[in-house]
């Protein structure tokens, strides 16, 4: 495929990236998730990190912004990903609250 790339975040989840967005497929649950640019940005930082503050810190460092600014922008996305149980799947473990 010329532009879209495909790789595995962990064993269970397949990510199909197109431009700045992505479609994530969980073969185990046969479920797909659309990630817009913000959601995909969060998605890429989640791997290995369970804690919201740690995720926001990684995003702030990447974007060169203040952590509270990043948190206000990305908190709804992160909350939605937790609500759908995707954080745990990305980590390859059950989600922890």
């Amino acid at each position: 495929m010329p532009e879209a790339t495909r790789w595995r975040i962990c064993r269970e989840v397949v990510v199909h990236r197109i431009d700045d967005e992505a479609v994530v497929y969980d073969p185990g649950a046969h479920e797909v998730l659309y990630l817009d640019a913000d959601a995909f940005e969060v998605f890429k930082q989640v791997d290995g990190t369970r804690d919201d503050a740690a995720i926001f810190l990684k995003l702030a460092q990447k974007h060169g912004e203040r952590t509270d600014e990043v948190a206000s922008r990305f908190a709804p996305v992160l909350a939605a990903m937790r609500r759908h149980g995707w954080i745990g799947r990305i980590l390859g473990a059950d989600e922890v609250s």
Partner: protein
Amino acid sequence: MSTASTTGRRDVGPALDGYNPARRASCPAPPGLESPAYYRIGAVTVCLHSADARFREPFHHLYQRHYIGGPTLSAVHIRVDRIIRVRPLGRCFRICVDGEERFLLRKPQAVLPHVEWAINAAVAATLPRYHQLHAGVVARDGFALVLPAQPQCGKSTLTARLISRGWSYLSDEFALIDPETLSLDPYPKALCIKEGSFEIVDAFCPAAGALPSYEKSWKGRVRLIDPQALRPHRTPWGIPVGMIAFPRYVARPAPTLHPLSRARALFQLLGVCFTFGRYRAATLDVLGGVVERAACFQLESGEIDATCDVLEAAWRAHVPTSGRPDPADLTHPEEPVRPGVEAA
């Protein structure tokens, strides 16, 4: 007993080929049609087994251009029988697909659209090779316009109008994607127009007003329209996708067309993909390849011609003319193999 009731009959002037009821009466089915009769409808081969002329002859007149006569190694076998069930139906019509009972119907007016429904279900469940989307598909300039949508979104009506405006027809129900080339092959079935669109279609195809209407379960009354009657044309094969527009009917005159990101388009395509459960992760690769080459839009359709104007303007702006030969010159591929049915 008539096979279907006729609604909205009026003076339609010279009827197009295949639509004139008088011609229908004077055009008997060819010798040997009785049963079984084979039809190669684009990438789908159908064999109709029925001793009842009320179903056999209307089916033949819809698909006579696709009639191939003799048996083939692969086909969807549709059998229509008159049977008696003690309860609850009593005397009824039974439609079987590849030997399995699919529908039991009391009224003869319901048989033909359910035959079509049974074929579609068999295509979605068993046709090999293709990744399948629930979509209307038309082509122009060597590229395809795909209209993916759930039922009741106006795919068939919009497809019919586009054909009459010069587009070539591939299907009003299936986009059949070859996973190796990412191009589309046709399944040019009769267009199934629901009662709510009868007047719209009659306005640009007056001959359609003389067609019988049939009963199709909860979908209500429908007409089955031969696409060649909308505009005589050849059926293209192997057409790459140039544009994808997800139609949604909104009851207002002015249509709108919003650009859609390719990831969003891929996600929405997965929602109308019949074969996602069969091919699973491979589906993302195929459909991802399709959206990368296409302009993608969300269409809120309105008045039919205004909607076509908007689509065609976007087409001219976003889809290059390919310089491919006219679809009429494209050669037909070999018949697709459907193993397990009449295999030698």
